[in-house]
């Protein structure tokens, strides 16, 4: 019995204990920094945790706290939703050996398309209109990602450069569309803002009032499942992984390598486009030019994907972590006597950075582990990407 338990532990340790252990370590070190700045890490963390709304799930949370917790949990999940999708936009090309920094641009492309379709066609029935708006966003994201893919497949243009450039083109382009006197500016003459989404194109609310959690979360979860199945259970996914690991061998095996590049960047872009649609059809309902450049959803998606090791479950957890951090470190959650409001925002960013850093370095513990067992503790290999993929 004991042997079996040990064997299980040995087998599962790398997958289960390491992330948990390093997350803990991350929080400990983050706490040290908080303490260094003269604050109590314990209460800071309690505030952050409660700020995420996850205390809603704890049985001992009092009922008046529960309302507030519910609000926060809704907001956490509202952010988690697009993060899961923009992370997928990174993960899928990553499996194909490419590094898509362009999630942000693809997300913006999705926003634009969702607004154009979602603010017109008021007469349509909800399912039709909603589907059209989502599809348009996915297509726009796919097109934006596909450009980078096509450039790589045809002239070998490095996707890191092209996606960075496409991000800014999308951002400034969208600002142009909705700016004062811009071609898609909404009805208010002196507000640089788009049209409103008509009610027939809004994602249904599922929990809460005012800015409730919307059905986009199911869309994102479904996308995770799609991703999982696509990568692990389909011929397409098999081919993508083969290209990612070894494009030479894939070509030898008869796999169309160039097509895989285009397809994965396009599908990734579609995920990011859907993220844009979720935000705009789920809770924003319009876009103001100022918001376009400020949004970081696509960029954070990169970290989410890598932290989640490009696996569906990992992405879900990492997105929740990031969503929780963003909401948990919001000013609502932090006591101004502990975190002066002028500094709270930056302290929150520092804590987020530390957590990414330490969770990213899972191998910190692998190190200790390997001292005892030289083999077996390696995390599953992922293809090498970024400037690596030629």
């Amino acid at each position, binding site marked *: 019995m004991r042997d079996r338990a040990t064997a299980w532990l040995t087998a599962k340790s790398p997958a289960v204990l390491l992330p948990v252990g390093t997350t803990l370590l991350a929080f400990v070190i983050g706490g040290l920094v908080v303490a260094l*700045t003269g604050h109590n890490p314990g209460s800071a963390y309690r505030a952050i945790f409660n700020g995420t709304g996850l205390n809603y799930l704890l049985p001992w949370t009092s009922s008046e706290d529960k309302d507030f917790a519910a609000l926060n949990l809704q907001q956490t999940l509202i952010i988690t939703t697009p993060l899961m999708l923009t992370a997928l936009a990174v993960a899928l090309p990553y499996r194909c050996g490419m*590094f898509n*920094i362009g999630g942000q641009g693809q997300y913006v492309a999705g926003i634009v398309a969702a607004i154009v379709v979602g603010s017109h066609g008021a007469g349509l029935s909800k399912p039709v209109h909603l589907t059209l708006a989502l599809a348009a966003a996915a297509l726009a994201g796919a097109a934006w990602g596909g450009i980078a893919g096509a*450039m790589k497949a045809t*002239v*070998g*243009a*490095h996707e*890191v*450069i*092209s996606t*960075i*450039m*496409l991000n*800014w*083109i999308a951002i*400034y*382009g969208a*600002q*142009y569309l909705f*700016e004062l006197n*811009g071609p898609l500016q909404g009805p208010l003459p002196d507000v640089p803002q788009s049209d409103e989404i008509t009610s027939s194109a809004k994602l249904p609310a599922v929990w809460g009032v005012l800015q409730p959690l919307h059905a986009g979360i199911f869309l994102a979860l479904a996308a995770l499942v799609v991703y999982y199945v696509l990568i692990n259970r389909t011929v397409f996914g098999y081919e993508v992984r083969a290209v990612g690991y070894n494009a030479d061998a894939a070509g030898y095996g008869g796999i169309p390598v160039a097509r895989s590049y285009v397809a994965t960047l396009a599908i990734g872009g579609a995920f990011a486009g859907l993220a844009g649609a979720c935000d705009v059809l789920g809770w924003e309902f319009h876009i103001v*030019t100022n918001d376009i450049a400020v949004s970081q959803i696509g960029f954070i998606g*990169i*970290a989410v994907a*890598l*932290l989640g090791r490009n696996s569906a479950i990992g992405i879900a957890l990492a997105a929740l972590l990031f969503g929780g951090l963003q909401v948990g470190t919001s000013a609502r959650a932090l006591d101004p006597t502990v975190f002066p409001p*002028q*500094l709270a*925002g*930056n*302290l*929150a*960013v*520092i*804590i*987020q*950075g*530390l957590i*990414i*850093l330490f*969770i*990213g*370095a*899972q*191998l*910190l513990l*692998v*190190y200790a582990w390997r001292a005892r067992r030289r083999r077996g503790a390696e995390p599953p290999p992922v293809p*090498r*990407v*970024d*400037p*690596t993929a*030629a």
Partner: protein
Amino acid sequence: MTALDRIPRGARGVAILGIVVGLVGLELALPPLQVQAAAVPVVLGLAAAACAIWALTREERKLGIWALLVAVVATAFAIWVQGKSDTSTSLVVNSGLFAATLVYATPLAYGALGGIFCERAGVVNIGLEGMMLTGAFFGIWGTVWSGHWAIGLVVAMLAGALVALVHAVFSIHLRADQIVTGTAINFLAVGVTGYAFIDIYGSNGTPPSIDSVPSITLPGIESIPGIGGVFGSLNLMIWVVFVLLVVTHLLLFRTPIGLRIRSVGEHPRAADTVGIPVYRIRYACVMLSGVLAALGGAYLSVGFVGSFGQNMTVGRGFIALAAVIFGKWRPYGAFGACLLFGFASGLADRLQSVAGVSPNLLATLPYVLTLIALVGLVGRSRPPAADGQPYVKG
């Protein structure tokens, strides 16, 4: 043997001819000549395009695309310019444009040189942005604290090295995913500099007058028309980046240490087997990269604007990273990419007042031009073979 024999023959030569003809068409339309007949650039443009196509059909792809690009862009620009009055043309194309090109290119160039060192040694550095931001803040902080810009720059370099050390420890020894670590660096830099900025300087920001990096004026050159407006008086840090550029090139490609750095980035095990200390070199290069990127940030704050603002680098580190790849991990290539980007940024600025186009639309210009250049001119780039891969000894 006549002079004709020395002209490059065949498709190459024709493509080069096309480029020259296209540029001549443009030059004729610009001050001081300003030929006002649309036929001139059109004819020359067509001739250039013909050369380009001739070359393209004879398998001279790269130069052919160059020539085609020049033909189209130069002709379009020349015709557009002809429709404009004298003054609006000279508003756009003047020595200020080239000076602005250098100003925009300089922080990118520092960042890109840093990126080259890091990636040549096999460590991907997506944290350039954060390192630049760190340098921007600590450059100001050091200058204010000491009263001397030089000390400010030293402080910036130290801060950059320290941040880079974090990147180095995590990606070299702990073998974390280098992209995750870089992302974390970017977060940390925003948080730390923002926190310190507000904590130290409050709401009015950094002091209004700080000791700033001097400009070097070259009296002889200053008075030369054209060139004088560009190079006559340049910030010291711009001259430094020129020097660093040459030094980096020599170091990487002409010295033993450069050979070793490149070997570590290409094939760390091979380097290890001849006794090169892989980890030490990687540490040194990553930290050097932090130092250089921090200088780029410090150029923005101490060198150029004389103040710090939260997140004032706004993505320049990413552009620098793109320049590294664009330039195929070579200093001159990357610098060329920085210049291209700087030129396009300066051009977009200047077009605002004359073009009557939305400033937002114009703001896409540098990115669009980079994309076009990427497709047309650069093509495939091969990174150092071990870039991004942690090295495991034994």
